[in-house]
């Protein structure tokens, strides 16, 4: 059953056509990776799926519910969560406060205004668990703008995980992470239960090939190719536009 369905989406930025007739099907439980040259429109597609940007034409449905045209926070209501390519954090809050906000977003009590935050113990516990799991527990009281870039990237990922989504959209989660953190993140993605569906944009081929069930290549705003990892790896045209033919910089996993 397809969880996320993108049908014939068009998007242009005042005149510049960025997405042309993009259709995409992501099955529940699938690990789907989106690759493509810089500027192919991957991030834009994410924006369109989550409602961050309105789409010109086309339909996006999650689990049969249309979410295109609705405000972006509704995407979270249907179980979608995303990260940003460019860090988009609460720079002046601490790591912990960042997480609290993210976790509370999906709690029924997010509108309550009569009980102090710290009395919602479930929330505090969830945050603690996540922080410990990701080695950020010691940094919990650190204000975000004092974190190193890589640490911020990690937090970016945690904010998306915090809402316990069914469908997780990750925009270059490992960029800016050191190999160690990259490996950790990769392991996390591999070990996630299949109840969580992943759609990932990634330029690190090690990561791509170690998680992907299916890969879609976007080029000039169009779906260039979509298929199993082996198919993509072997494709000459993809090599030309994306992988590059020269020296094999990448050790293949």
């Amino acid at each position, binding site marked *: 059953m397809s969880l996320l369905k993108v049908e014939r989406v068009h998007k242009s930025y005042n005149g510049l056509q960025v997405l042309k007739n993009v259709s995409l099907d992501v099955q529940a439980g699938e690990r789907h990776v989106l690759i493509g040259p810089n500027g192919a429109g991957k991030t834009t597609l994410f924006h369109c799926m*989550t409602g*961050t940007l309105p789409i010109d034409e086309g339909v996006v449905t999650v689990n049969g519910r249309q979410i295109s045209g609705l*405000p*972006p*926070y509704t*995407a*979270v*209501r249907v179980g979608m*969560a*995303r990260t*940003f390519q460019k860090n*988009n*954090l*609460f*720079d*002046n*809050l601490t790591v912990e*406060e960042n997480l*609290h*906000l*993210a976790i*509370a*977003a*999906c*709690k029924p*009590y*997010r*509108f*309550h*205004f*009569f*009980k*102090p*935050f*710290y009395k*919602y113990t479930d929330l505090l516990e969830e945050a603690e668990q996540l922080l410990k799991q990701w080695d950020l527990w010691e940094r919990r009281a650190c*204000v975000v703008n004092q974190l190193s870039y890589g640490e911020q990237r990690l937090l970016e990922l945690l*904010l998306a995980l915090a*809402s316990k989504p069914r469908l997780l959209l990750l925009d270059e989660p490992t960029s800016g992470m050191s190999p160690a953190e990259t490996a950790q993140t990769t392991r996390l993605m591999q070990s996630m239960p299949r109840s969580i569906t992943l759609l990932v944009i990634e330029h690190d081929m090690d990561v791509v090939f170690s998680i992907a069930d299916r890969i879609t290549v976007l080029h000039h705003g169009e779906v260039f190719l979509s298929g199993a990892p082996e198919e993509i790896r072997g494709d000459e045209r993809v090599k030309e536009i994306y992988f590059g033919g020269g020296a094999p910089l990448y050790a293949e996993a």
Partner: protein
Amino acid sequence: MKKETVALHVAFVAATMLLPLILTSYGLKLTSEVLIIAMFVMSLGLIIGFAGLVSLGHAAFFGIGAYTVALISEHVDNTWLLLIAAVVTAGIVAFLSGLMFIRSSGAYFLMITLAFGQMLYAIAYKMEGVTGGADGKAVSESFNLGFGAIESRLAFYYVAAAAFLACYYLLRVFLSSPLGKGVRGIKENESRMTALGYNTHLYKLTVYSLSGMMAGFAGALYAYFNQYISPDLLHWMFSGQALIMVIVGGVGTLLGPAIGAGFFVILQNYISSYTERWPIIMGLLFVCLVLYGRGGVIHLASLVWSHLQSKRRTGREKSVLPKEGSGFESLKG
């Protein structure tokens, strides 16, 4: 809550309640006025410091509260009803204007709220038949919550003090609640809040309306207190003063704006009766506050505090500035 915190709160409330013991009759009156204005400034501090909505038209809601009492008291004399009417009217106007304006931000929000306030000012000024026009209107209704009319200064002081404390603790609870935290998150990074699944518009609208209601409440009390209202209560100059009080007290704190109100009103009152050159002195004070106190009395206090602390701890290097908003607020939860 920690023990010391509880003690602090008890001391705070007790101090407010015992203040009349050391005040002269005039001091009592002035302090009551300061408390009412502090409530208003606190409501502005709420949207500025916690939601990032810098308004230059907040006096509109204060004025609406005051005018509601003044106008309706000609027909109704139940104080409860009048207060509720004032709060509700201010809240409704805040909600509706918020619906229109909240998508603007920064300087644009500042100016559109200024314009809105000025429109209301113009209305109050021009509709002489209803509002008394530029000459204002006397309010003859006395304050009566059902335990007899409150006429004495002392009694009214307690009304103002109780109202102030109630507002303060209400906001404290609000700010530490999930809703309040959400509002602060929006100030920090609205786009991320949206992506996390918050309906940021609704949050902003809620806090804006709440703030308008509180301003309206303060305005209603002010009408009782002063027994006279005039369009000046709606004018942007008053909004501007309130804005300055918020900054003077300390943006991003709850008590800061209230302290700013007291600081501003009392200081200006006394300096201006000693010298005609009071604007220079006030101006210099503001400049110094920015240069040495990060713009707020409360921030200044926290700087001094952390300085003292770090002196005690030897071997420590220069102290880091406290981050905005988490400054000295010993009453913080």
